[in-house]
Protein backbone atom coordinates (compact mmCIF):
# COMPACT_ATOMS: atom_id res chain seq x y z
CA UNK A 1 0.00 0.00 0.00
CA UNK A 2 1.22 3.50 -0.83
CA UNK A 3 1.87 5.77 2.07
CA UNK A 4 -0.86 8.44 2.02
CA UNK A 5 0.51 11.86 1.18
CA UNK A 6 -1.26 15.14 0.48
CA UNK A 7 -1.23 16.26 -3.13
CA UNK A 8 -2.22 19.68 -4.40
CA UNK A 9 -5.63 19.70 -6.15
CA UNK A 10 -4.96 19.93 -9.91
CA UNK A 11 -5.52 23.32 -11.49
CA UNK A 12 -8.32 21.84 -13.63
CA UNK A 13 -11.10 22.77 -11.22
CA UNK A 14 -14.37 23.38 -13.05
CA UNK A 15 -17.42 25.32 -11.92
CA UNK A 16 -20.86 23.74 -11.59
CA UNK A 17 -22.17 26.80 -13.45
CA UNK A 18 -21.48 24.60 -16.49
CA UNK A 19 -23.41 21.68 -15.03
CA UNK A 20 -26.93 20.79 -15.96
CA UNK A 21 -28.96 17.97 -17.42
CA UNK A 22 -32.14 17.81 -19.45
CA UNK A 23 -33.97 14.57 -18.81
CA UNK A 24 -37.27 15.04 -20.59
CA UNK A 25 -38.80 17.47 -23.07
CA UNK A 26 -42.39 18.54 -22.46
CA UNK A 27 -43.73 15.92 -24.89
CA UNK A 28 -41.55 13.19 -23.39
CA UNK A 29 -42.64 14.07 -19.85
CA UNK A 30 -46.31 13.94 -20.87
CA UNK A 31 -45.86 10.58 -22.60
CA UNK A 32 -43.92 9.20 -19.59
CA UNK A 33 -46.52 10.15 -16.99
CA UNK A 34 -49.69 9.69 -19.10
CA UNK A 35 -48.77 7.09 -21.74
CA UNK A 36 -51.42 6.85 -24.45
CA UNK A 37 -53.63 9.60 -22.99
CA UNK A 38 -54.73 12.80 -24.75
CA UNK A 39 -53.56 15.95 -22.98
CA UNK A 40 -55.30 19.31 -23.46
CA UNK A 41 -53.68 22.56 -22.31
CA UNK A 42 -55.81 24.33 -19.72
CA UNK A 43 -53.49 26.97 -18.21
CA UNK A 44 -54.92 28.75 -15.19
CA UNK A 45 -54.08 32.18 -13.78
CA UNK A 46 -54.48 32.33 -10.03
CA UNK A 47 -56.23 35.34 -8.52
CA UNK A 48 -54.42 37.24 -5.75
CA UNK A 49 -56.82 35.71 -3.23
CA UNK A 50 -56.18 32.17 -4.49
CA UNK A 51 -52.38 32.68 -4.38
CA UNK A 52 -52.65 34.00 -0.82
CA UNK A 53 -54.83 31.06 0.21
CA UNK A 54 -52.36 28.59 -1.29
CA UNK A 55 -49.44 30.23 0.52
CA UNK A 56 -51.34 30.15 3.80
CA UNK A 57 -52.44 26.52 3.49
CA UNK A 58 -49.19 25.07 2.13
CA UNK A 59 -46.67 27.33 3.84
CA UNK A 60 -44.84 27.60 0.51
CA UNK A 61 -44.36 30.81 -1.52
CA UNK A 62 -46.29 31.18 -4.77
CA UNK A 63 -43.83 32.87 -7.12
CA UNK A 64 -45.96 32.70 -10.26
CA UNK A 65 -49.67 33.11 -10.75
CA UNK A 66 -49.77 31.03 -13.92
CA UNK A 67 -50.35 27.29 -13.50
CA UNK A 68 -49.09 25.35 -16.54
CA UNK A 69 -51.82 22.73 -16.50
CA UNK A 70 -52.92 20.04 -18.95
CA UNK A 71 -56.01 17.90 -18.49
CA UNK A 72 -55.69 14.24 -19.38
CA UNK A 73 -58.35 12.24 -21.21
CA UNK A 74 -58.40 9.79 -18.28
CA UNK A 75 -59.38 12.52 -15.80
CA UNK A 76 -55.85 13.24 -14.51
CA UNK A 77 -53.85 16.47 -14.46
CA UNK A 78 -50.35 17.22 -15.74
CA UNK A 79 -48.57 20.27 -14.31
CA UNK A 80 -45.19 21.75 -15.22
CA UNK A 81 -43.56 23.80 -12.48
CA UNK A 82 -40.26 25.50 -11.69
CA UNK A 83 -38.35 24.92 -8.49
CA UNK A 84 -35.73 27.43 -7.41
CA UNK A 85 -33.47 26.19 -4.62
CA UNK A 86 -30.52 27.85 -2.96
CA UNK A 87 -28.08 26.63 -5.60
CA UNK A 88 -30.25 24.74 -8.03
CA UNK A 89 -33.05 25.17 -10.51
CA UNK A 90 -35.40 22.37 -11.58
CA UNK A 91 -38.23 22.10 -14.03
CA UNK A 92 -40.54 19.38 -12.76
CA UNK A 93 -43.57 17.61 -14.18
CA UNK A 94 -46.19 16.40 -11.73
CA UNK A 95 -48.97 14.02 -12.74
CA UNK A 96 -52.11 13.87 -10.60
CA UNK A 97 -54.69 11.09 -10.78
CA UNK A 98 -58.37 11.96 -11.18
CA UNK A 99 -58.74 11.72 -7.37
CA UNK A 100 -55.90 14.31 -7.04
CA UNK A 101 -53.39 11.83 -5.57
CA UNK A 102 -49.86 12.10 -6.95
CA UNK A 103 -49.40 9.75 -9.91
CA UNK A 104 -45.77 10.52 -10.74
CA UNK A 105 -43.11 13.20 -10.39
CA UNK A 106 -40.42 13.58 -13.05
CA UNK A 107 -37.49 15.99 -13.13
CA UNK A 108 -37.49 17.54 -16.63
CA UNK A 109 -34.27 19.45 -16.20
CA UNK A 110 -31.76 20.35 -13.55
CA UNK A 111 -29.31 23.22 -13.51
CA UNK A 112 -26.88 24.04 -10.78
CA UNK A 113 -25.40 27.43 -10.01
CA UNK A 114 -23.58 29.09 -7.19
CA UNK A 115 -23.95 32.52 -8.75
CA UNK A 116 -26.83 34.96 -8.90
CA UNK A 117 -28.18 33.34 -12.08
CA UNK A 118 -30.39 30.81 -10.40
CA UNK A 119 -32.66 33.61 -9.12
CA UNK A 120 -32.65 35.46 -12.46
CA UNK A 121 -35.70 34.56 -14.51
CA UNK A 122 -34.30 35.49 -17.92
CA UNK A 123 -31.36 33.19 -17.27
CA UNK A 124 -33.59 30.32 -16.16
CA UNK A 125 -35.88 30.68 -19.17
CA UNK A 126 -33.22 29.40 -21.54
CA UNK A 127 -33.37 25.97 -19.90
CA UNK A 128 -37.07 25.41 -19.28
CA UNK A 129 -38.60 22.63 -21.32
CA UNK A 130 -35.67 22.39 -23.68
CA UNK A 131 -34.97 19.12 -25.43
CA UNK A 132 -31.55 17.52 -25.13
CA UNK A 133 -30.69 18.59 -28.67
CA UNK A 134 -31.40 22.24 -27.90
CA UNK A 135 -29.40 22.15 -24.71
CA UNK A 136 -26.21 23.45 -26.22
CA UNK A 137 -24.81 25.84 -23.65
CA UNK A 138 -23.86 23.24 -21.10
CA UNK A 139 -20.71 21.23 -21.12
CA UNK A 140 -20.89 17.49 -21.72
CA UNK A 141 -17.86 16.80 -19.59
CA UNK A 142 -19.56 16.87 -16.21
CA UNK A 143 -21.88 13.90 -16.14
CA UNK A 144 -21.68 12.45 -12.65
CA UNK A 145 -20.94 14.22 -9.41
CA UNK A 146 -20.09 12.22 -6.33
CA UNK A 147 -20.84 14.53 -3.44
CA UNK A 148 -22.52 14.94 -0.12
CA UNK A 149 -26.24 14.58 -0.55
CA UNK A 150 -28.11 17.52 -2.00
CA UNK A 151 -31.51 17.88 -0.35
CA UNK A 152 -34.60 17.77 -2.56
CA UNK A 153 -36.65 19.70 0.00
CA UNK A 154 -37.52 22.40 -2.55
CA UNK A 155 -39.00 19.81 -4.90
CA UNK A 156 -41.05 18.37 -2.03
CA UNK A 157 -42.25 21.89 -1.15
CA UNK A 158 -43.25 22.54 -4.75
CA UNK A 159 -45.32 19.35 -4.85
CA UNK A 160 -47.02 20.37 -1.60
CA UNK A 161 -47.80 23.78 -3.15
CA UNK A 162 -49.23 22.16 -6.32
CA UNK A 163 -51.47 19.80 -4.34
CA UNK A 164 -52.80 22.82 -2.42
CA UNK A 165 -53.20 24.69 -5.73
CA UNK A 166 -55.40 21.83 -6.89
CA UNK A 167 -57.56 22.08 -3.75
CA UNK A 168 -57.87 25.86 -3.89
CA UNK A 169 -58.16 26.60 -7.59
CA UNK A 170 -58.46 23.54 -9.83
CA UNK A 171 -60.80 21.09 -8.14
CA UNK A 172 -63.96 20.73 -10.22
CA UNK A 173 -67.19 21.93 -8.57
Amino acid at each position, binding site marked *: *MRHPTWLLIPAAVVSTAAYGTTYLSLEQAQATIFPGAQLTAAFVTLTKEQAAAIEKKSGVNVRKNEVKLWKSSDGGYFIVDEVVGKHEFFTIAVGLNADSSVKQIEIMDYKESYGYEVRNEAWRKQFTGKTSAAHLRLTDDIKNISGATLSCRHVTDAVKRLLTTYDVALKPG
Partner: protein
Amino acid sequence: MCRRARPLLGTLVEIGACGPDASAAIEAAFMTVREVHRLMSFHEADSDVSRINQAAAGLEVCVDPHTHRVLRFARRMSAASRGIFDVTIADVLVRHGFLPPVAPRVTHAVEATWADLDVLDGSRVCWSRPGCIDLGGVAKGYAVDVAIEVLHTYGSAAGIVNAGGDLRMFGAPQPVHVRLPESPGSLVALGHFNDCALATSGSYFSGRGARGSRHEPLVSRDRRICAAMRESATVVAQDCMTADALTKVVRLAPGLAPELLGRFDAEAIIIQGTGLKHIGTAAHDRGIGT
Protein backbone atom coordinates in the same frame (compact mmCIF):
# COMPACT_ATOMS: atom_id res chain seq x y z
CA MET B 1 -27.82 6.51 -22.63
CA CYS B 2 -31.38 7.17 -21.47
CA ARG B 3 -31.39 9.13 -18.17
CA ARG B 4 -34.23 9.97 -15.79
CA ALA B 5 -34.32 11.70 -12.40
CA ARG B 6 -36.86 11.67 -9.59
CA PRO B 7 -36.98 12.98 -6.03
CA LEU B 8 -36.51 9.94 -3.76
CA LEU B 9 -34.58 9.04 -0.58
CA GLY B 10 -34.70 12.73 0.37
CA THR B 11 -32.51 13.62 -2.59
CA LEU B 12 -32.37 13.56 -6.37
CA VAL B 13 -31.99 10.03 -7.74
CA GLU B 14 -30.75 9.75 -11.32
CA ILE B 15 -30.84 6.45 -13.24
CA GLY B 16 -29.35 5.89 -16.69
CA ALA B 17 -29.37 2.78 -18.88
CA CYS B 18 -28.41 1.64 -22.38
CA GLY B 19 -30.29 -1.12 -24.19
CA PRO B 20 -33.50 -1.85 -26.04
CA ASP B 21 -35.55 -1.99 -22.81
CA ALA B 22 -33.89 1.04 -21.21
CA SER B 23 -37.11 2.90 -20.31
CA ALA B 24 -38.72 -0.15 -18.74
CA ALA B 25 -35.48 -1.00 -16.90
CA ILE B 26 -35.23 2.53 -15.50
CA GLU B 27 -38.89 2.53 -14.42
CA ALA B 28 -38.43 -0.82 -12.61
CA ALA B 29 -35.23 0.44 -10.97
CA PHE B 30 -37.06 3.53 -9.65
CA MET B 31 -39.80 1.28 -8.23
CA THR B 32 -37.15 -0.69 -6.30
CA VAL B 33 -35.56 2.49 -4.95
CA ARG B 34 -39.00 3.64 -3.80
CA GLU B 35 -39.52 0.30 -2.04
CA VAL B 36 -36.19 0.61 -0.20
CA HIS B 37 -37.13 4.20 0.73
CA ARG B 38 -40.49 3.01 2.13
CA LEU B 39 -38.96 0.14 4.14
CA MET B 40 -36.08 2.10 5.65
CA SER B 41 -37.71 5.46 6.28
CA PHE B 42 -37.18 6.80 9.79
CA HIS B 43 -40.17 9.12 9.37
CA GLU B 44 -42.92 6.71 8.29
CA ALA B 45 -44.71 4.91 11.11
CA ASP B 46 -45.12 1.58 9.31
CA SER B 47 -41.58 1.25 7.92
CA ASP B 48 -39.35 -1.62 9.07
CA VAL B 49 -37.12 0.94 10.80
CA SER B 50 -40.05 2.39 12.78
CA ARG B 51 -41.24 -1.07 13.80
CA ILE B 52 -37.74 -1.98 15.01
CA ASN B 53 -37.56 1.31 16.93
CA GLN B 54 -40.78 0.49 18.78
CA ALA B 55 -39.96 -3.14 19.59
CA ALA B 56 -39.28 -4.18 23.16
CA ALA B 57 -36.24 -6.24 24.16
CA GLY B 58 -36.61 -9.93 23.36
CA LEU B 59 -39.37 -9.39 20.82
CA GLU B 60 -38.57 -10.72 17.34
CA VAL B 61 -39.43 -8.34 14.53
CA CYS B 62 -39.98 -9.73 11.02
CA VAL B 63 -38.50 -7.44 8.39
CA ASP B 64 -38.31 -7.37 4.61
CA PRO B 65 -35.34 -9.27 3.10
CA HIS B 66 -34.00 -5.88 1.87
CA THR B 67 -33.92 -4.50 5.42
CA HIS B 68 -32.41 -7.75 6.66
CA ARG B 69 -29.56 -7.51 4.14
CA VAL B 70 -28.81 -3.94 5.18
CA LEU B 71 -28.86 -4.76 8.91
CA ARG B 72 -26.66 -7.82 8.43
CA PHE B 73 -24.16 -5.70 6.50
CA ALA B 74 -24.34 -2.91 9.13
CA ARG B 75 -23.52 -5.42 11.87
CA ARG B 76 -20.54 -6.70 9.92
CA MET B 77 -19.30 -3.14 9.32
CA SER B 78 -19.79 -2.25 13.00
CA ALA B 79 -17.75 -5.26 14.12
CA ALA B 80 -15.01 -4.56 11.55
CA SER B 81 -14.80 -0.88 12.53
CA ARG B 82 -14.90 -1.63 16.29
CA GLY B 83 -18.19 0.25 16.65
CA ILE B 84 -17.19 3.41 14.77
CA PHE B 85 -19.89 2.57 12.25
CA ASP B 86 -23.13 2.15 14.19
CA VAL B 87 -26.76 2.48 13.07
CA THR B 88 -28.10 2.73 16.65
CA ILE B 89 -27.50 6.47 16.89
CA ALA B 90 -30.93 7.82 15.93
CA ASP B 91 -31.38 9.49 19.33
CA VAL B 92 -28.26 11.62 18.76
CA LEU B 93 -29.51 12.69 15.32
CA VAL B 94 -32.90 13.59 16.84
CA ARG B 95 -31.22 15.62 19.57
CA HIS B 96 -29.28 17.61 16.96
CA GLY B 97 -32.40 18.22 14.87
CA PHE B 98 -31.38 16.03 11.91
CA LEU B 99 -34.33 13.67 12.47
CA PRO B 100 -37.82 14.34 13.86
CA PRO B 101 -38.78 12.97 17.30
CA VAL B 102 -41.22 10.43 15.85
CA ALA B 103 -41.02 7.70 18.51
CA PRO B 104 -40.98 8.15 22.30
CA ARG B 105 -37.76 6.16 22.59
CA VAL B 106 -35.72 8.57 20.46
CA THR B 107 -36.35 11.62 22.63
CA HIS B 108 -33.88 10.64 25.35
CA ALA B 109 -30.37 9.22 25.24
CA VAL B 110 -30.29 5.48 24.56
CA GLU B 111 -27.52 3.22 25.86
CA ALA B 112 -27.92 0.39 23.34
CA THR B 113 -25.33 -0.08 20.60
CA TRP B 114 -25.08 -2.12 17.41
CA ALA B 115 -24.16 -5.19 19.47
CA ASP B 116 -27.61 -5.10 21.13
CA LEU B 117 -29.51 -5.67 17.87
CA ASP B 118 -29.32 -9.34 16.89
CA VAL B 119 -29.83 -10.04 13.21
CA LEU B 120 -31.33 -13.53 13.04
CA ASP B 121 -31.88 -15.93 10.17
CA GLY B 122 -35.27 -15.88 8.48
CA SER B 123 -35.44 -12.07 8.11
CA ARG B 124 -35.91 -11.43 11.82
CA VAL B 125 -34.19 -9.05 14.20
CA CYS B 126 -34.34 -8.75 17.97
CA TRP B 127 -33.09 -6.24 20.56
CA SER B 128 -31.30 -7.68 23.58
CA ARG B 129 -31.50 -4.11 24.97
CA PRO B 130 -33.88 -1.68 23.22
CA GLY B 131 -32.33 1.02 21.09
CA CYS B 132 -33.19 3.03 18.01
CA ILE B 133 -31.71 2.87 14.56
CA ASP B 134 -31.43 5.15 11.58
CA LEU B 135 -30.25 3.68 8.27
CA GLY B 136 -29.47 7.08 6.70
CA GLY B 137 -25.77 6.18 6.56
CA VAL B 138 -26.20 3.06 4.47
CA ALA B 139 -29.68 2.75 2.88
CA LYS B 140 -28.94 5.18 0.07
CA GLY B 141 -25.97 3.10 -1.01
CA TYR B 142 -28.03 -0.07 -0.76
CA ALA B 143 -30.80 1.47 -2.88
CA VAL B 144 -28.20 2.25 -5.55
CA ASP B 145 -27.03 -1.38 -5.48
CA VAL B 146 -30.50 -2.87 -5.90
CA ALA B 147 -31.32 -0.41 -8.69
CA ILE B 148 -28.16 -1.59 -10.47
CA GLU B 149 -29.28 -5.23 -9.98
CA VAL B 150 -32.61 -4.37 -11.64
CA LEU B 151 -30.84 -2.81 -14.65
CA HIS B 152 -28.80 -6.02 -14.98
CA THR B 153 -32.00 -8.12 -14.79
CA TYR B 154 -33.41 -6.17 -17.72
CA GLY B 155 -30.28 -6.90 -19.73
CA SER B 156 -29.05 -3.29 -19.90
CA ALA B 157 -25.68 -3.12 -21.63
CA ALA B 158 -24.55 -0.23 -19.43
CA GLY B 159 -26.05 1.66 -16.54
CA ILE B 160 -25.50 4.24 -13.82
CA VAL B 161 -27.41 5.11 -10.66
CA ASN B 162 -26.63 8.29 -8.71
CA ALA B 163 -28.57 8.89 -5.48
CA GLY B 164 -27.64 12.42 -4.52
CA GLY B 165 -23.93 11.76 -4.91
CA ASP B 166 -23.69 8.05 -4.04
CA LEU B 167 -23.26 6.31 -7.37
CA ARG B 168 -22.45 3.07 -9.13
CA MET B 169 -22.00 2.19 -12.78
CA PHE B 170 -21.35 -0.74 -15.11
CA GLY B 171 -20.83 -1.48 -18.80
CA ALA B 172 -19.06 1.73 -19.84
CA PRO B 173 -16.47 4.00 -18.18
CA GLN B 174 -18.06 7.13 -16.71
CA PRO B 175 -16.36 10.41 -15.83
CA VAL B 176 -16.86 11.34 -12.17
CA HIS B 177 -16.32 14.72 -10.53
CA VAL B 178 -16.25 15.50 -6.83
CA ARG B 179 -17.03 18.79 -5.07
CA LEU B 180 -14.46 20.81 -3.16
CA PRO B 181 -15.77 20.83 0.42
CA GLU B 182 -14.94 24.49 1.02
CA SER B 183 -16.36 25.56 -2.34
CA PRO B 184 -19.03 23.00 -3.36
CA GLY B 185 -19.73 24.88 -6.59
CA SER B 186 -16.26 23.88 -7.78
CA LEU B 187 -15.57 20.41 -9.07
CA VAL B 188 -12.43 18.40 -9.55
CA ALA B 189 -12.30 15.44 -11.96
CA LEU B 190 -11.47 12.12 -10.31
CA GLY B 191 -11.18 10.29 -13.63
CA HIS B 192 -13.21 7.62 -15.40
CA PHE B 193 -14.69 4.71 -13.46
CA ASN B 194 -16.41 1.48 -14.44
CA ASP B 195 -17.92 -1.52 -12.61
CA CYS B 196 -17.56 0.07 -9.19
CA ALA B 197 -19.26 2.45 -6.77
CA LEU B 198 -18.34 5.83 -5.28
CA ALA B 199 -19.79 7.59 -2.26
CA THR B 200 -18.83 10.90 -0.70
CA SER B 201 -19.38 12.24 2.79
CA GLY B 202 -18.97 15.93 3.53
CA SER B 203 -20.81 18.58 5.49
CA TYR B 204 -21.29 21.18 2.74
CA PHE B 205 -25.00 20.44 2.17
CA SER B 206 -26.01 18.57 5.30
CA GLY B 207 -24.43 20.66 8.06
CA ARG B 208 -26.47 22.70 10.55
CA GLY B 209 -25.57 25.75 12.56
CA ALA B 210 -23.36 28.74 11.95
CA ARG B 211 -19.72 28.57 10.93
CA GLY B 212 -17.71 27.68 13.98
CA SER B 213 -20.47 25.67 15.66
CA ARG B 214 -21.50 23.67 12.63
CA HIS B 215 -22.52 20.04 13.05
CA GLU B 216 -23.34 17.39 10.53
CA PRO B 217 -25.39 14.19 10.70
CA LEU B 218 -22.32 12.08 11.45
CA VAL B 219 -22.22 10.70 14.97
CA SER B 220 -19.02 10.27 16.89
CA ARG B 221 -19.75 7.12 18.88
CA ASP B 222 -17.66 7.59 22.01
CA ARG B 223 -18.83 11.17 22.55
CA ARG B 224 -22.36 10.50 21.27
CA ILE B 225 -22.51 13.87 19.55
CA CYS B 226 -22.63 14.98 15.94
CA ALA B 227 -19.24 15.65 14.46
CA ALA B 228 -18.06 18.83 12.78
CA MET B 229 -15.34 18.38 10.18
CA ARG B 230 -14.14 20.32 7.18
CA GLU B 231 -12.80 17.64 4.86
CA SER B 232 -14.73 15.33 2.55
CA ALA B 233 -14.11 11.62 2.00
CA THR B 234 -14.90 9.77 -1.21
CA VAL B 235 -14.71 5.99 -1.12
CA VAL B 236 -14.42 3.79 -4.19
CA ALA B 237 -15.62 0.22 -3.59
CA GLN B 238 -17.20 -2.66 -5.47
CA ASP B 239 -20.70 -1.89 -4.22
CA CYS B 240 -22.33 1.35 -3.11
CA MET B 241 -23.50 0.19 0.35
CA THR B 242 -19.89 -0.57 1.27
CA ALA B 243 -18.70 2.75 -0.18
CA ASP B 244 -21.47 4.68 1.63
CA ALA B 245 -20.71 3.08 5.02
CA LEU B 246 -16.93 3.38 4.66
CA THR B 247 -17.08 7.16 4.04
CA LYS B 248 -18.27 7.58 7.64
CA VAL B 249 -15.57 5.34 9.12
CA VAL B 250 -12.84 7.02 7.09
CA ARG B 251 -13.91 10.45 8.36
CA LEU B 252 -14.51 9.46 11.98
CA ALA B 253 -11.49 7.20 12.43
CA PRO B 254 -8.75 8.03 9.90
CA GLY B 255 -6.36 5.77 11.82
CA LEU B 256 -8.50 2.73 11.09
CA ALA B 257 -9.01 3.65 7.44
CA PRO B 258 -6.07 1.90 5.70
CA GLU B 259 -6.75 -1.48 7.33
CA LEU B 260 -10.51 -1.31 6.87
CA LEU B 261 -10.34 -0.07 3.27
CA GLY B 262 -7.99 -2.95 2.51
CA ARG B 263 -10.34 -5.47 4.06
CA PHE B 264 -13.27 -4.24 1.95
CA ASP B 265 -11.15 -3.87 -1.21
CA ALA B 266 -11.77 -0.12 -1.28
CA GLU B 267 -9.89 3.13 -1.72
CA ALA B 268 -10.50 6.58 -0.28
CA ILE B 269 -9.84 10.07 -1.57
CA ILE B 270 -9.77 12.75 1.13
CA ILE B 271 -10.13 16.39 0.10
CA GLN B 272 -9.35 19.22 2.47
CA GLY B 273 -8.82 22.80 1.36
CA THR B 274 -6.67 22.58 -1.75
CA GLY B 275 -5.16 19.22 -0.80
CA LEU B 276 -6.08 15.73 -1.92
CA LYS B 277 -4.94 12.43 -0.37
CA HIS B 278 -5.36 8.82 -1.56
CA ILE B 279 -5.64 6.00 0.96
CA GLY B 280 -5.39 2.41 -0.34
CA THR B 281 -4.78 1.19 -3.86
CA ALA B 282 -7.68 -1.16 -4.55
CA ALA B 283 -9.37 1.13 -7.05
CA HIS B 284 -6.25 1.27 -9.18
CA ASP B 285 -6.29 -2.51 -9.41
CA ARG B 286 -9.69 -2.20 -11.09
CA GLY B 287 -8.07 -0.39 -13.97
CA ILE B 288 -9.30 3.07 -13.17
CA GLY B 289 -7.46 5.94 -14.73
CA THR B 290 -8.01 9.49 -15.84
